[in-house]
């Protein structure tokens, strides 16, 4: 990565400047972000666009003695712009109201975790020529498949470096790489004149783990499985959630509901449920930021707090400490931050995000689960999300199939499901041993019994 700016010199300049405001300033933080990416894009199953880009910038978080937060950012890395950002952050800070719930930004610590394999040298040295190899396989498989008529896909690789410094003495620097491949494939049954689509993606820290063949074949299978569509009658039946279904229906809602900010504002359906059994014994969920090589892992979060493994739900019990915190929400509750401060880039203040959010796999094979179902539904994807304050979910099954006598049958058209999430959690009967990882989420297959399905067949 070409680096012609001396970030530490700029930081020193910024802190010297901030020191002048000691009378009103309680603490401040400088967050530098430097990133580069490469993206090869396929449309209509042809390479269409080659893209690269880079970005670097800094933000200043200035917090007043009354707890008021001022924030400023720029992508102009020079002393003059730093001066302007210091001035602006102080001006913003002075315009805010008192916040007695603010305690402090993080303190430095002696040692940070040493998570392995977050950075792949091969991503940094990757050329456009090398990247093409990752997409040619996608194009070939789509071309050779009789039913595939088109594909949008991409391969992307990026490197990023964050440097966080604050007036308490935190000074951390970390680099990471991410590469990903996605395939959205369109298939057509020419005889029946039916069209359908399937989508799959993979993201990894290391290039060597990227498997375009597996990604496109999975997308292709999903598209074909989704081709023959029927309307069904309303019924109560068991459903099998695929890992993607589990992520959208269970993991994402829980991740949002245990976000300490939403929780403290009492905006989520899990408020008042701590230390309670909220679901089947089979559910165990943790947020683990320390897994070597995982996409959601890091040594420290977006404020420089060490990452950790936080247990959220243990055998169906929502643990008292099962919330994800940044330093602000932790201070408000009088606990330690869980190292879940998250930022999209230097241009945002720290919010709260997951690291690797994992529903532990079970013992039974997923094929066994399906084989045992006489009449049921396989649910892979719904674009809906539950009402987070009530936990009510009602949504369209975008990708789902009938299961009949232990076999996966036709896909569902205009079929919806409705349930409250707490009821769903209780009705989980089986957890499969197979699991899949999508980005920062890891999920097995689940069987949930007695679910209301609303069909549109009269």
């Amino acid at each position: 990565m070409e680096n012609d700016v001396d970030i530490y010199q700029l930081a020193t300049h910024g802190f010297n400047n901030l020191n002048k405001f000691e009378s009103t300033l309680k603490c401040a933080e400088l967050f530098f972000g430097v990133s580069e990416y490469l993206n090869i894009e396929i449309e209509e199953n042809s390479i269409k666009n080659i893209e690269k880009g880079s970005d670097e910038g800094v933000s200043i978080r200035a917090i007043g003695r009354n707890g008021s937060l001022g924030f400023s950012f720029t992508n102009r890395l020079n002393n003059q712009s730093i001066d302007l950002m210091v001035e602006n952050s102080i001006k913003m800070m002075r315009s805010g109201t008192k916040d007695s719930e603010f305690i402090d930004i993080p303190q430095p610590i002696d040692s940070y975790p040493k998570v392995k394999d977050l950075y792949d040298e091969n991503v940094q040295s990757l050329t456009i020529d090398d990247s093409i190899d990752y997409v040619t396989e996608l194009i070939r498989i789509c071309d050779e498949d009789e039913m595939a008529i088109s594909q949008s896909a991409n391969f992307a690789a990026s490197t990023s470096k964050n440097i966080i410094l604050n007036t308490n003495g935190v000074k951390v620097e970390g680099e990471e790489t991410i590469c990903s491949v996605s395939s959205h494939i369109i298939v057509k049954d020419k005889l029946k004149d039916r069209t359908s689509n399937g989508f799959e993606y993979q993201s990894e820290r290391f290039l060597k783990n990227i498997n375009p063949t597996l990604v496109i074949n999975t997308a292709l299978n999903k598209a074909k499985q989704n081709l023959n569509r029927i309307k069904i009658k309303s019924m109560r039946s068991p459903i099998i959630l695929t890992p993607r279904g589990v992520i959208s229906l269970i993991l994402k809602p829980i991740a949002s509901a245990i976000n300490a900010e939403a929780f403290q504002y009492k905006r989520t359906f899990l408020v008042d449920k701590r230390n309670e059994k909220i679901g089947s014994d089979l559910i165990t969920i943790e947020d683990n930021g320390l897994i070597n090589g995982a996409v959601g892992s890091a040594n420290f979060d977006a404020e420089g707090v060490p990452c950790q493994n936080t247990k959220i739900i243990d055998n169906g019990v929502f643990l008292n400490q099962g919330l994800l915190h940044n330093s602000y929400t932790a201070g408000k509750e009088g606990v330690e931050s869980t190292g879940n401060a998250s930022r999209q880039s230097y241009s945002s203040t720290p919010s709260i995000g997951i690291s690797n959010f994992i529903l532990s796999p079970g013992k039974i094979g997923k094929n066994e689960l399906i084989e045992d179902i006489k009449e049921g539904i396989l649910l892979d994807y719904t674009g809906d999300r539950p009402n987070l304050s009530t936990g009510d979910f009602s949504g369209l099954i975008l990708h789902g199939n009938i299961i009949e006598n232990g076999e996966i049958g036709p896909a569902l058209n205009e079929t919806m499901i409705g349930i409250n999430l707490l009821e769903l959690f209780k009705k989980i009967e089986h957890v499969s041993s197979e699991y899949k990882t999508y980005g920062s989420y890891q999920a097995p297959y689940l069987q949930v019994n007695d679910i209301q399905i609303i069909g549109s067949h009269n």
Partner: protein
Amino acid sequence: MAENDELNIFTDDLLNQLHDKAKNKVDYWDIRAGVSNGNTIEFSDEKSKEITSYLLTGCSIRTFIDGGWGFNVLKKLSKKHLLDEFVKTIKMAKFSSSLCKFKYPIKERNALTQNFKVNSKRNLEDVDLSEKIEMVKEHESIASNYSKLIKNTRTIYLDSQVDLLFLDTFGSKVKQELEILRLFSSVYAQNKGIIQNGTNSVGGVGGFEVMNTEKALSLSKKSSEQAINLLNAKSPIGGSFSVILDSKLTGVFIHEALGHACEADLVLNKESILTEKIGEKIAIEDVSVVDDPRFGQGEKFNLPYELFGSYFIDEEGTPAQKTIIIKNGILQSFIHSLETASRMNVAPNGHGRANSNSSKPQVRMGFTYLEPKDWDLEEMIADTKNGILCEDFQYGYTDPTTGNFQFKCRISTNIENGEKKENLRDVSFGGMTLDVLNKISAIGNENTFNYSDGICGKGGQGIRVCDGGPYIRIDNLTVGGLN
């Protein structure tokens, strides 16, 4: 603006050098550069959460050679860096071209040379930060004091002043000065263990006057009303109903279920249900749909500013224009970028949009709406035996390949024998686009026509858009429920 001096590097000398370097090497190129600054003010429960000020410079280069594109986002703006990266981007297009299957030329067009400045009545630079903060505080106070049942309020104000420069192969040089504002209000109410939320936003292109209209001033009150009303709303019972959509939901239906399928990139990629349907009747005869993102439409809605989804040119230098998508039920045209128009051999119609200089243009909508007809709302309700009146929406999505769509409404009302009954929450309805366009049984008149604005996501980019229409009624729609 003092900070926009960075755009001064684009002298005639530099432009000549760029044209020289591109000559005989590249079929088309464009450069977008811009400087933006602005504020974000976020309050919750009448306390400031975050007050932000920013200053950003952005520049990207796009090149095209016989079907292959190169796109390069620069991290800084200097003459030397720009020229070096320009040459690299030409190489990227060349490489891309060597691998792509579809060969075509970009349609030539006239060079556009213009300086455009949006007509702001109160320029943002004349509005002190304290006035913006007072405005946010006022909204917070209205919401917090609306009822004892209001437990949490949140108000976010965002503004930006943007100076943009567009250059292209044909010799275009367009400078634009825009001011864009948005206000967002979210309120949570709680009673007997039930939590409900009301959320609304208003946005516009113009000066601070955007915040001084009745529409903006009543925003937090509207969110509070919604949250309180929803506390007593019931969960719906699933089934098949006649559903009346308010103008907001009609707009969402037109945007999500129909509009996306009209985006020519999806059509070319065989992802749209409307592929090869131009000239065919796809809806009942009363259905006419247009996309008109031109400036100058605020007045229609008694607003002293430009609509949030409006623009002067798209991000490829094509002027915004009115496009008729459906006329009397017959599909007339798709919406296009330079690329899709060139490939399908039609004129580009100004829909190659990007959300910033660091994103490449995609085919996107502007202000998409259904033309009104002749039903009164009261008449429509009185004519409905067993139905649901749905108002305001939470979110919606569509699978453009199959046309299967799904929307979630915020607040709904049961209709029995032509009369409104109890309130319902979280009603979701879905169907197949082409089926539903033929199941519309009533289209409201001018008086029921309105628009709403928001951010539409596609390919990782959020774009400001508007959509709208009159109230409409759709028969036999599948409604989801918990029971």
